[in-house]
């Protein structure tokens, strides 16, 4: 039956967000979040290599910095 429930929203601080990127990178790509970010920034990984890569790339801070 259709309902009207809303999805719960979790706000993550920058440390929690980085931890999430790390968990997802290990789960879907078998590498740490740090390694993924380094290899993506270095051009060793193409954002279009796979759906998982695109998803992980979009999880990184868009401006490349964290406060």
């Amino acid at each position, binding site marked *: 039956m259709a309902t009207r429930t*809303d999805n719960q*929203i979790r*706000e*993550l601080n*920058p440390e929690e967000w980085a931890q999430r990127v790390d968990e997802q990178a290990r789960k879907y790509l078998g590498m740490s979040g740090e390694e993924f970010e380094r290899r993506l920034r270095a051009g060793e990984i193409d954002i*279009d290599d796979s759906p998982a890569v695109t*998803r992980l*790339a*979009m999880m990184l801070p*868009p401006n490349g910095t964290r406060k």
Partner: protein
Amino acid sequence: MAPGSRTPAEAIEHYRGRTARLLACLTGEYVVVSAYHAADPPHQLELLDLAKLRAPHPLRLSVGEHYEAREDADGWRVEVVGYNYAIEHDGRDLVSYHWHPEGESPITWPHMHVGTDTHVGERWFGKVHLPTGVVGLERVVALAITELGAKPLRDDWERLIAEAADR
């Protein structure tokens, strides 16, 4: 168009709630957001993980958005400034809509990819960037329900899609 908000924080809260309700049409998965007060914009909103859709075939949804609060003559509004919307079928990419104007990719315009085994010469067509306009999340939700057979989890899904399109 709905009126703008009085503050950036109010606009962001409205955006988060509206997007979570829209996603609740398809999945009960958590929505995660970056703490906007702790980082420079653009900010981020995503589904926690790939979300399995209720459908007669194995569909999964991935959603990520980058957004900013901007002020116009009518108040503060949130504008989506980048996204990744993808639908998988049976573990493979079926269709994905991308817009990543920032970052390392030279492809800065909105585009889509289709899941296919087709090659054009040596080029795998699945990696070809098919140009699009900016696609709203509500169109992807509508696509999943009306074209791909995903069952809506809310009975007001058509109203929510119309509201999102009007923002």
